[in-house]
């Protein structure tokens, strides 16, 4: 095991790099800012690789742990660590950061330094969320990450960006403030500890567990987002610049889902069992109802945003079946969705940069002018629909298998997403890509350049790798997921 504080590096390298990029100042130094941002993102990714290669899959506990006093007055510690559940997200986040910096390379010409700095700082903060083992540290990262996203949407967003930025910020803040009160309650109940791992062991009666669970639910459901608190997401996605959409879909949505596994299930296991039917119902609504909503969207970004909500419904569904198959399937789905939705938003961004429209109706016959792009876009659309041999299939299939064991009708409803997913994804693809050249804009399209091709191919390789050979991803999860399930099976009521 490495002696370097890898997790600290994974958090602080991007943040410091972001500050350095910020120091390059105005747009005269834009090429330098881009270069520095790329170097920072790559450096941040490289320090996360040893997390995966050096990870001990047999150990279900926390690894690469760092523990320092931070605020002894309230017994708050700088306590970091990853297990099989969180480790992959750190790697994914660092990876997506490179994609995002590359995605904005020529596209963003206004306040380049601030743009890249916001993404780098955001990336560091999100690594902090995935690795925090102290409740306050987690919360601090969780809330601080709102600031860069607020600015990304508001400064580089579309025409209605102000509304979307405020909605994003206030929705999420609403959830997390109740979460803060829950953290303080746990602090008092545990006799003065903010350690998440201590809280896992803390015995609690059913009624406090239910209140805690509901507080967590509000915070994480907004972030995931679950139906009916999902309405901020389509607005945020539509208005955000391409990079913002990629980070939002690929990483930020995972924070809420991750919170369920780190807080809700282990801290309030009895309440989780008690209220699992509520969460399963909300998840199924997300899968089925939002699937239909996605079908009728005229705006491509909105369509993918709704499809994200439906996919995240699968994730929460998988968590609350309390089976290894369900949780691992959900985790695989989260990572796969990171690649696929990131790629989908990037593809839409590629078209938007050329035509400046996201309306499906403004396109048609793109394959005639952008054949390379059409081929790659096809792959991601298929993955979004959950086609076998793509990463999208593995997670959905595992969750549906888990659901069959639980209840046939739940599985049936969940499986309908396979049909709906195929319907909205492929129908959009058909209308945009196939057919005759629809208008002059499409006629003048140029195929993707080297940079875009590189980004899409890397994402394509990841999608296929995970679809064909998901074992390296699932191997690291087993021990931690089994530990979690054993823990959740034991009642905390005394």
């Amino acid at each position, binding site marked *: 095991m490495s002696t370097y504080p890898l997790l600290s590096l994974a958090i602080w390298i991007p943040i410091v790099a972001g500050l350095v990029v910020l120091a390059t*100042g*105005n747009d005269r130094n834009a090429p330098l800012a881009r270069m520095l941002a790329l170097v920072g993102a790559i450096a941040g990714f490289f320090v996360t690789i040893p997390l995966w290669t050096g990870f001990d899959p047999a150990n279900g506990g926390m690894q690469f742990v760092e523990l320092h006093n*931070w*605020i*002894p*007055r*309230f017994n708050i510690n700088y306590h970091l660590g990853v297990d099989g559940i969180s480790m992959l997200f750190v790697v994914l986040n660092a990876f997506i950061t490179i994609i995002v910096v590359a995605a904005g390379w020529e596209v963003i010409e206004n*306040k380049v330094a*601030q743009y890249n700095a916001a993404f780098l700082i955001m990336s560091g903060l999100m690594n902090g969320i995935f690795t925090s083992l102290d409740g*306050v540290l987690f*919360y*601090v*990262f969780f*809330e*601080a990450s*709102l*600031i860069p996203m*607020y*600015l990304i949407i*508001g*400064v580089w967003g579309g025409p209605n*960006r*102000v509304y979307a*930025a*405020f909605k994003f*910020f*206030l929705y999420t*803040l*609403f959830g997390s*403030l*109740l979460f*803060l*009160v829950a953290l*303080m*309650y746990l*602090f*008092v109940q545990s006799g003065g500890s903010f350690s998440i791992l201590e809280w896992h062991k803390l015995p609690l009666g059913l009624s406090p567990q239910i209140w805690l669970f509901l507080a967590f639910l509000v915070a994480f459901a907004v972030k995931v987002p679950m139906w009916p608190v999902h309405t901020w997401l389509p607005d945020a996605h539509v208005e955000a610049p391409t990079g913002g959409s990629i980070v939002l879909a690929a990483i930020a949505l995972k924070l809420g889902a991750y919170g369920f596994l780190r807080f809700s299930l282990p801290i309030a296991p009895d309440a989780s069992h008690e209220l699992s039917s509520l969460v399963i119902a909300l998840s199924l609504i997300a899968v089925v109802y939002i699937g239909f909503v996605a079908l009728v969207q005229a705006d491509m970004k909105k369509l993918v945003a709704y499809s994200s909500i439906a996919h995240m419904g699968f994730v929460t569904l998988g968590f609350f079946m309390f089976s290894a198959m369900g949780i691992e399937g959900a985790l695989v789905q989260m990572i796969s969705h990171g690649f696929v939705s990131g790629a989908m938003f990037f593809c839409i961004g590629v078209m938007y940069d050329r035509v400046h429209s996201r309306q499906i109706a403004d396109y048609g016959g793109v394959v005639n002018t952008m054949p390379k792009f059409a081929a790659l876009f096809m792959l991601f659309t298929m993955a979004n629909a959950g086609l076998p041999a793509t990463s999208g299939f593995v997670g959905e299939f595992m969750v549906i298998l888990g659901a069959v064991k639980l209840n046939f009708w739940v599985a049936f409803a969940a499986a309908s997403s396979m049909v709906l997913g195929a319907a909205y994804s492929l129908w959009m693809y058909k209308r945009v890509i196939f057919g005759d050249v629809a208008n002059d804009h499409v006629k003048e399209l140029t195929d993707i350049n080297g940079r875009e091709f590189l980004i899409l191919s890397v994402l394509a390789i990841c999608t296929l790798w995970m679809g064909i050979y998901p074992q390296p991803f699932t191997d690291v999860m087993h021990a931690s997921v089994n530990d979690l399930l054993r823990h959740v099976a034991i009642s905390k009521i005394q």
Partner: protein
Amino acid sequence: MFDNFVVPDLLPAAPEIFVAVMALAILLIDLLVKDSRRTAIFALTQLTLVGAAVIQFMTSTGEVSYTFSNMFVDDLMSDLLKLFLYMTVLVVMFYSRGYVLDREAMNKGEYYVLALFATLGMMVMISANSFVTIYVGLELLSLSLYAMVAMNRDSVVSTEAAMKYFVLGALASGLLLYGMSMIYGATGSLEITGIAERLYAGDANKTVLVFGLVFLVSGLAFKLGVVPFHMWIPDVYHGAPTSVTLFIGSAPKLAAFAIVMRLLVNGLITLAQDWQAMLIILSVLSMAIGNLAAIAQTNLKRMLAYSAISHMGFMLLGITTGVVSGDARYALNAYSSAMFYVVAYVLTTAAAFGMILMMAHAGFEADNLDDYKGLNRRSPWFAGIMLMVMFSMAGIPFFVGFFAKFSVLQAVVAAGYMWLAIVAVLFSLIGAFYYLRVVKLMYFDAPADDSPLQATTDMRILISANGLAVALLGLFPQVIMSLCAYALLRSL
């Protein structure tokens, strides 16, 4: 005739004596200074504050010592609060310098002398152990402030604000005095420690006491500026010259916290059940009205005024949770969290008004929200500083305001007032909206004019330092937090 006269121990009051002497001296020296810039007066004022801090530091024993027949107390809480006070006034004076120089009517030696007298008043309030001392300190502060608000005497709004402040302030003093006289009647003592002893013995008339308490709390609420005694705050903040608004909005909060502690906690802790209930109402109302009304403002000073109301309401939460059903176990935790809140608030608010002062120049007040449009394009650095200040006020990490809210909320939850914590966070959610709006103006909107910021170098450095302090104390709040806790531990 003077047989009984014992020369009091002057050492605990050495900083007060020093400031008083210096203020008088500066008043005289000012007559001899012809230079219109009055650099000497400014420098002497700042030296006085530094000198007071040094004396404070040298004479601090860490023990609780009484002097002037128990009317004056020097303990670690007062030492710490006074040190924060000197620092605040020092920074405030630096911030005001350019603003005052730009305005003929205010560029007088009296400006600095009044500030020093106000500081002296606050020092006396912080160290008061008797109703009389509190009242003397309070009036010294208030009278100096009335004059400072009216200093820009050709301005109609300033004059109006001063009148309003004076009339309402006098009313508040009346309420306070009335409450004090009631409590004196019930306990037969003017000394705070004496009152506490009487109350502990339990032979005072409860009806008269509670009657007096209501007036006392009303008077305090007036001075703190919490709902429903907040009417003067927006008008005075708005009408006063910005440098005076900064003064009123920062340092007196420290002194107000001190007299709340002295009167309610040191003196009337046995009545905690009664005054805590009153403070909860005041606090919830302040958070509600302050945050909601701030949304409707188009003037930054007015917005910060309503924000001050809500912040003081939040701070009171910490004080309401010290005693839970007769159990004072949580007292230290609760009061030190409130103290940390005040210190963090003063630091943040100084930076906010400092920004207004920096943006302002002769003939331009920079106090409309729209004046901040597109600041990010004009000066990314100062837009960044203002962003930190706004997020700190909204209680978003990693800024000091978050940990201030955190420590108070923690005290509220520890005391078992779960509903109060939830109410408090919901109102901070509403509050976040108008702070976000300032950030929106600076970052999302285009500037009215693209001209780069004009500001002096020292102003730039000071604002930057203040803004970075907001961020650094957010990353490492432990030092100040534990200082507050330690000071209260040694003083209560």
